[in-house]
């Protein structure tokens, strides 16, 4: 039971008043921006990154994590009440949630979503508690070859799994890789793409890129988007679902927890994909699939559970391997780096207070959210009345001020503006910013680990296959790369029988394509 000691110590970290306060602040901000269709958690975290500079690392991450999973709760509210998904991960909730609201069961829908989110989140934290030390047990076996394989797999998954056009995702990822090469070559000291500027000698900092692309880019893009005026929300009553309803949805909540947990761990996965997969699964499993889209409670409970489970479990690859699974986690990575903490296999052992403090804060945060989300629904919906003309300049100002404070550098502010424009143009032309930012983060890791490995292997690339972990990872890489080919071959063989079976998937994919992915 030695292993439980640090877990329990983690609770004492969370229960410090300062940390509790920041946890509360985080989840409230998370819910707020979850309600606002403009800002997503990644943008918010990007904007608030510099503000965390002055506080303790554990406190900062507790707050940022709260924003992330808090947004999963908030996004549901507007999906159900206004048919306006506040978050990409709550898009599928619209299908049945809004119908339930029209039938006068808005309270039930919100109640189910909140309970499901709580269960999904809690289940994922328990999974995280047991899985993380297991992975960390291999900490010292993770050398340059393992990191090269992991980074390659991560970039591939990010580019192929994320929603939207694959070709565009690959282009964005390539640009990210290219940007990662700027700066002094750490093996030879040669300057690359610095154009003689000493400001670029260390390469481009991750934080201004993220703040520009996610923060400023998002703000600019939203100014252009016209949101539907907020209608008066439907009346919310009997928030607590009846026993029969709960029993009906319990299967969906259980399946959503497991599905969400695993999809969250996957690089490139995350809350949005988990919610869609869960919706598709529930629809496939249902005895009367035609009920879906007409107010089926499972259609709300499943995806809402899955998105929160995934939001939580996506911390696993970041905290144990130092590999961010999605864009929001890339920002967490940046936040940790600002704090002088390098996430990786050593984290659990070297910074147990930070690790377990953050993990355990999620229990508290989920309880806070469950308590807050139902009674405060009316207040959160009112936020929608704040005009973009007021919100946008304030957030833009905070972003630019924040960018300056990190390194006291005007150059960083310029970078934020440049990447803000890049982010805006990317969104406008349908490029996902996620793959770019993730490839940028992983690109540095990939290049240095790959070159380091080759030095250790004396230039022999077969060396990667002599080590069990890197060999396994590379095998998975090949599998994933070949997957689309295998799939289409199988589909051809199945012929017409598959056509009817994949109809369900088809509608789901349409849903995915219609979503303007928001990070």
């Amino acid at each position, binding site marked *: 039971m030695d292993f439980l000691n640090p877990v329990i110590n983690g609770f004492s970290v969370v229960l410090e008043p300062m940390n509790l306060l920041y946890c509360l602040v985080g989840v409230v901000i998370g819910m707020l921006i979850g309600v606002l269709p403009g800002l997503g958690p990644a943008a918010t975290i990007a904007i608030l990154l510099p503000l965390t500079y002055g506080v303790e690392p554990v406190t900062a991450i507790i707050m940022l994590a709260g924003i992330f999973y808090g947004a999963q709760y908030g996004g549901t509210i507007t999906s159900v009440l206004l048919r306006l998904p506040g978050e990409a991960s709550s898009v599928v909730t619209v299908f049945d949630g809004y119908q339930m609201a029209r039938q006068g069961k808005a309270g039930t829908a919100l109640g189910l979503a909140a309970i499901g989110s709580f269960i999904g989140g809690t289940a994922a934290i328990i999974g995280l508690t047991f899985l993380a030390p297991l992975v960390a047990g291999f900490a010292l076996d993770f*050398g340059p070859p393992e990191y090269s394989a992991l980074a390659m797999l991560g970039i591939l998954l990010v580019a192929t799994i994320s929603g939207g056009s694959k070709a565009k995702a690959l282009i964005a990822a390539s640009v990210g890789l290219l940007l990662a090469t700027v700066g*002094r070559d750490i093996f030879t000291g*040669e300057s690359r793409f610095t154009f003689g500027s000493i*400001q670029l000698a260390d390469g481009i900092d991750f934080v201004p890129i993220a703040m520009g692309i996610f923060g400023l880019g998002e703000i600019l893009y939203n100014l252009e988007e016209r949101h539907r005026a907020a209608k008066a929300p439907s009346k919310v009553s009997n928030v607590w679902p009846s026993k029969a309803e709960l029993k009906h949805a319990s299967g969906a909540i259980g399946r959503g927890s497991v599905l969400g947990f695993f999809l969250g761990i996957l690089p490139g996965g995350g809350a949005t994909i988990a919610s869609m997969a869960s919706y598709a699964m529930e629809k496939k499993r249902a005895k009367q699939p035609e009920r879906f889209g007409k107010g089926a409670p499972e259609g709300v409970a499943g995806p809402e559970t899955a998105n929160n489970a995934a939001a939580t479990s996506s911390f696993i690859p970041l905290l144990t391997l130092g590999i961010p699974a999605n864009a929001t986690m890339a920002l967490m990575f940046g936040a940790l780096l600002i704090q002088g903490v*390098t996430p990786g296999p050593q984290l659990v052992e070297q910074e147990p207070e930070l690790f377990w403090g953050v993990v355990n804060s999620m229990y508290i945060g989920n309880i806070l959210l469950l308590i807050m989300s139902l009674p405060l629904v009316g207040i959160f919906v009112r936020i929608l009345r704040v005009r973009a003309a007021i919100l946008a300049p304030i957030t833009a100002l905070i972003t630019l001020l924040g960018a300056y404070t990190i*390194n*006291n550098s005007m150059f960083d502010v310029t970078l934020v503006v440049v990447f803000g424009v890049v982010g805006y143009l990317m969104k406008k032309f349908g490029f996902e910013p996620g793959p770019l930012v993730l490839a940028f983060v992983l690109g540095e890791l990939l290049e240095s680990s790959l070159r*380091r490995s080759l*030095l250790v292997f004396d230039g022999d690339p077969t060396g990667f296959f002599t080590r069990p972990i890197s060999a396994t990872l590379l095998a998975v890489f090949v599998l994933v790369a070949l997957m689309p080919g295998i799939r289409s071959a199988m589909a051809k063989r199945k012929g017409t029988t598959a056509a009817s079976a994949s109809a369900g998937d088809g509608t789901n994919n349409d849903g995915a394509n219609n979503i303007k992915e928001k990070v």
Partner: protein
Amino acid sequence: MKHFPTRRAILGTASAVTLLALTACGGNVGGGAAAGNSSKYPSGPVTLTVGQAAGGSTDLIARALAEGATKTLGSPMPVVNKPGANGALATKEVAGKTADGQELVLLTASLITITPLAVSADEAVNIDDLDIIAGLSQDDYVLVASQQSGFKSFEDVTNAGRNVTFGTTGVGTGSQLAQTVLFKQASVKGTDVPFDSGKPALTAVLGNQVELATIQLGEAMPQIEAGKVSPLLVFSEERNSFLPDVPSAKEAGYDVPVAQYRAVAAPKGTPQEVKDKLLASFQDTFKTDAYKEFNKKNLLTPKELSGEEVVTEWKGYAEKYKELVEKYDISLGGNK
């Protein structure tokens, strides 16, 4: 509506004029203090810029020094981090500021003595562009070996008769210079694997991804004490008082004196009285128990020299390292 732009223009001009007048005034006051009566120094907070990120050993030293000097100088000394290009960014920026003693920089010796061997000339910093106020301390490098390598002393390495892999803390660092020169002198064949800093290099030794690495003593000590890595040599000219049983490279017969030194510098042309006042306040700080305790805790050996001594010594090292790399035909930059 037609009036509006005109009115705005007038308002704008008026405020611009006011602002100009104000700044001009401020400039006069500031200028007077700097050029004239230096007994008025310091005329406000004295900023100490650090070219490394917050939390690193250089930053910690700056903060410990600033805390003491705030009391002895009677003026706040905020520490500002401007990381970039091994500290060249911050150093060049401070070197270009007004030489009134209000702007200082914490200078690392490697930036002057080793980095120029690895980077292009316009990225390098020249010590003659600065006035050195005081030397601070010496931070030693130690060569450590992984357990699986079986190396318990440097003789084991020279007797191994095979290619060894060694991690460095990056290109153009003391860690790289010390090891490449040492291995040439000892005729050991080695593969140089650069890491981003000391921590990942140490982790690689712990996981036996590289057999050897040279890192700063403060970073290596916890693992040395835990017996997870074996210390083979220190690169200081004498044994390090914190590791009395580990021989120095010189004792083992190798001529490779490498350590990290740090000093405080001001822009070139700072008035002598200002420099004297700063030096006196730093010397008072050196005497405090808190600062002594800080050095001890971070395994730093005090090396509290005058500015002139620092310049002579660092220039000597720069010369020596240049000779060494030329003699052994080592290229810190494009190796392999």
